[in-house]
């Protein structure tokens, strides 16, 4: 277990380092910068801006500064006009993503700190929807295999996988906002703001989970220990709940890693449609606004998130199924 975690940590470090390095040099490889506008900027201002963001340094020094965890800026930005020493930052390795290029008064960390809880809440709701709908649909269609219910649920699942989540979102909005007027159309603030985007985001994953659950349940239901349980006179409900489900949902557990990554990604679009001020919205805006530090910060953050979640899922898998051993990192 410890060896597994250590190996994981090593590959994790390498992966994150690659992401940081590649995105840093990509960003710098493009001539021009975030401050290019149609309007000519005064040379002094331009110089000041470059100094503020260390763009006047040689590339290797900028890279080291960005990577951290040491500060190469001895002046702490205090020599600049209006500088108060706050412009220096510790580097990505200590979790400091530096100042935002566009939101001048904010650091990338400020923006992430504001928006990440929103995105996490949305992602949690989406995952809850996906599990709730997917597991129940999968179990139902496995138990009533071949019936109309099974057929209908499978058709719904195939459609759910095929439809893009923004199309699902559009239908949900038309249905539950304009026709039935159950939920507010967009925005952020209360739990009811989360239900609809969560459903739209979780929908396709619910469909996939339903398919996995159905397959897993069918396999388990044909096992001998299930027959034994029936034979010794357990009520069918207990057989299902106590014996079958545990083995049947195992495939779902290993899918949770990719599903979480997918939900994080999908939230880019869903947040945009429902005007939710989460990290996804900021990321898309930063890509469109040329706010490179913010875009890089979010990319790195999500790499870390996805990687950690995948490791957690792998660990959970061994707890649930003792037959699996942690060999490959």
């Amino acid at each position, binding site marked *: 277990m410890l060896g597994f975690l250590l190996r994981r940590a090593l590959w994790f470090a390498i992966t994150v380092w690659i992401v940081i390095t590649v995105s840093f040099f990509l960003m710098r490889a493009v001539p021009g910068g975030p401050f290019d506008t149609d309007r000519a900027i005064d040379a002094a201002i331009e110089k000041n801006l470059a100094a503020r963001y260390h763009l006047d340094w040689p590339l290797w020094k900028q890279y080291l500064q960005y990577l951290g965890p040491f500060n190469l800026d001895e002046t702490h930005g205090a020599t600049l006009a209006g500088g108060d020493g706050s412009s220096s930052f510790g580097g990505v390795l200590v979790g400091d993503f530096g100042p935002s290029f566009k939101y001048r008064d904010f650091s990338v960390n400020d923006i992430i700190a504001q928006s990440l809880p929103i995105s996490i809440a949305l992602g949690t709701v989406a995952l809850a929807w996906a599990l709730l709908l997917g597991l129940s649909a999968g179990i139902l269609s496995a138990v009533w295999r071949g019936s109309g219910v099974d057929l209908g649920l499978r058709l719904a699942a195939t459609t759910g996988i095929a439809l893009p989540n923004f199309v699902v979102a559009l239908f949900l909005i038309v249905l539950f906002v304009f026709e039935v007027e159950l939920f507010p159309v967009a925005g952020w603030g209360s739990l009811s703001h989360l239900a609809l985007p969560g459903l739209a985001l979780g929908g396709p994953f619910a469909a996939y989970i339903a398919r996995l659950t159905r397959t897993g349940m069918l396999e388990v239901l044909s096992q001998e220990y299930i027959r034994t349980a029936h034979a010794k006179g357990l009520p069918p409900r207990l057989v299902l709940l106590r014996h079958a489900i545990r083995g049947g949902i195992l495939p779902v557990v290993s899918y949770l890693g990719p599903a979480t990554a997918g939900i994080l990604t999908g939230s*880019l679009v869903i947040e945009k449609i429902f005007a939710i001020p989460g990290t996804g919205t900021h990321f898309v805006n930063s*890509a469109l606004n040329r706010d490179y530090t913010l875009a890089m910060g979010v990319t790195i953050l999500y790499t870390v998130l996805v990687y950690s979640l995948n490791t957690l899922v792998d660990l959970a898998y061994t707890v649930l199924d003792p037959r699996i051993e942690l060999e490959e990192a």
Partner: protein
Amino acid sequence: MPGERWDLGGRDLEELLVEAREFKGESLWQDARRRLLANRSALVSLVVLGVIGLISFGAPLLPLPSPQALDLQLEPQPPRPPWVELGRGGWTADDYDELSALDGLMLRTRAYLFGDWQTGRWFGTDTMGRDVLARIVWGSRVSIVVALVATLCSLVIGVTYGAAAGLLGGRVDNAMMRLVDILYSIPFIFLVIFVLSLIMERRSELEDMGIRFMHVFYVILGLIYWLTMARVVRGQVLSLKSSEFIEAARVLGASTRRILFAHLVPNVLSIVIVYLTLTIPAVMLFEAFISFLGLGVQPPDVSWGLLAVDSVEAINPVRSYWWLVAPISCAMGATLLALNVLGDGLRDALDPKLREKD
């Protein structure tokens, strides 16, 4: 005479050979075709996709209004079904810009066939007075081309990489697959969006160099979909390499080339085809996703992703223009559904081992 050595049950060898000729061995492909033809939903999907492909390719031949012709009226017009208004006249070749030679030819053929007649607003018009049906048909072209090119890229890279890893084996294989593992754990969409935003900045300079932004876009999409392909191909090559029939071929003295092309390639091909049909819908979805965020296909080009953006903007509490939402959702849903069903069907047909337990 061989007949003297084996007991033929008192029958003539020639007779037996004639009889044996009637039993044809079933190759992998014949077997697969039989199974695919028996799968009705996969067949329907195939037909649907064929029709969509034909319509999309022959878009300039159809008497549709130009997808770019603006008509800045006040409001988007609701659909007028064919039985209310069948068509009207008045289009000119000027309504279309930048057509390839083939498209231009098709457009002239259309002018010859239909004159200046064009369909009415069967599906309504959008906020800029453009015909929704025409935009869906023309938009499908970009979406399909993106999907095909990106899938092709992923095919070339993935198969080469996977086959190389599988064939070389050992430490090289280990290192190559470790790289794939690393790439797998990177949330690519973020990197792609980041890279696209950087390239978008330099669009005009790229175009001066003769590189169209769209082409870069296609290739970048292809670059992220090869990982699964590489893994699958490598796994297949590894298991084939140690399989008994390859061993047998080698014992019989088959050359490496013959083993490679007569035995390995056909067996890997089936699994590659399956993953191709499953990659295409994923790429189409991704194109829609990226265009939706404003980083993919740029107006005046039109793609399904852009149409989806229009449909989102068309929804508001005051008045929702349903005809901007329903047709594109249906077109996209139907295509992706058909591709998924066909992919599942092909997988069942070509690789019974992968089959879900149904």
